[in-house]
């Protein structure tokens, strides 16, 4: 198994562990570590189809292990993967752009996720709830993607993970 898959698996597990140490009423530290790794890992895939498959598989794994909402995150991560593909075409590969991309994608992920939940589930749409969910997910995840960038600089390891 290549390192990128280890990285995804570790992020999947750490996301579960880190939740045990974060306040359930957090307004700042909602972890989306797997999503961040999915965003970060895109340049290491030569083949886009492989990347989309990976998004789908890890999304389903996330559903199976943590949420019991089979295919919900599979579908969401696949959509995010598709948007990642276009955003990486627009931006060059540096830390500022990776952080910007991750911020945009967290916002898109929250809007898509919440809209879908309101559409298919019994949630009532509230702008405040949506806004709170976005603001609570920015800081920790930006720190995590910056950390990933520092330990695995994409410029020097392109296609080698």
């Amino acid at each position, binding site marked *: 198994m290549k390192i990128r898959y280890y990285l995804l698996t570790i992020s*999947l*597990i750490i996301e*579960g*562990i880190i*939740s*045990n*140490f*974060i*306040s*359930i*009423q*957090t307004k700042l530290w*909602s*972890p*989306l570590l797997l999503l961040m790794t999915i965003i970060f890992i895109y340049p290491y895939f030569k083949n886009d189809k492989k990347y989309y498959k990976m998004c789908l598989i890890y999304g389903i*794994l996330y559903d*199976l*292990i*943590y*949420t*019991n*909402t*089979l*295919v*919900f995150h599979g*579908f969401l991560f696949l959509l995010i993967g598709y948007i990642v593909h276009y955003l990486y075409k627009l931006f060059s590969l540096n830390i500022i752009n990776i952080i910007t991309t991750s911020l945009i994608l967290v916002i898109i992920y*929250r809007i898509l*996720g*919440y809209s*879908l*939940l309101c*559409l*298919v*589930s*019994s*949630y009532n749409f509230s702008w405040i*709830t949506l806004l*709170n*969910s976005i603001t*609570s*997910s920015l800081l920790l995840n930006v720190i995590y993607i910056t950390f990933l960038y520092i330990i695995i600089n994409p410029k020097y390891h392109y296609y080698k993970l």
Partner: protein
Amino acid sequence: MHRKRKLEPRYIVILLLVGITVILGSLFYIFHENRSLTIIEKGVKDIGLFLEGVIYTPVRWVSETIEVTKERQEINKEYDQLKRKSLEYDLLEAKYNELDKEFKEITDLMELNSTMSEGTYVNATTINRNIDYWYQTITIDKGSKSDIKKGNAVINSKGLIGYVDTTSNYYSTAKLLTSENLNHKISVKIEVGELFVYGLLTYYDKDKNIFMIEGISENTGIPKGSVVTTTGLGNTFPSGLVVGYVESTLMDNFELAKTVNIKPAANFEDISYVTVITKGDVE
């Protein structure tokens, strides 16, 4: 040479519409059907959570050791206070035995079958919390092999914290009362002197950390600090589980029904160890 045929735009639109319908349909089914996990889902969940448990164990050990050291210092202080209180213990024990005897007699008379004291308790450790904005669930290290079933009440030392949502063989996921979409509206009663006021626990305000009880029609004044417990009605939870304490009361716009705000008894930050009451389950 063979050339790849391009789909006409109308077919692409049809395919897209079918795809979106299928996806939305499946999601609607997943969110609305009261389904149990399949064998494959149970297997993947068990393996995934086992792996997480292996990594989490040393991390938990370190954090618990730090916590234990802090607690030890506090215990020393409390020990002195308890020493004084222990003198009153004998008196209270005699009173308790008398009350327990009376309670058993009354229970026999009323043929209650879902009181808290009759439940079977399964102690479990929280191995994962999903604190994501929409879910608010915890995963515990006991599953259907420990007789845990969907709908069982989950408590900690302070009171009710939620109910079991799904189970695999060795793990269960419990939905917290703080979750936005509770499937069960919980029937609760407020103790006001010798009277009980009944209502439904409907909503959790994350910002204020309070629950709301609606559907109260009695005009009885409800004092602040009154104890709120489950009623045992609807067979969802056993009766007598402490949910919280009354914080304030409000009248609705038509001044017909009361809304009561209650402060949760359980600390939802401290749910490392929980107990599942494996009786009074619902499907």
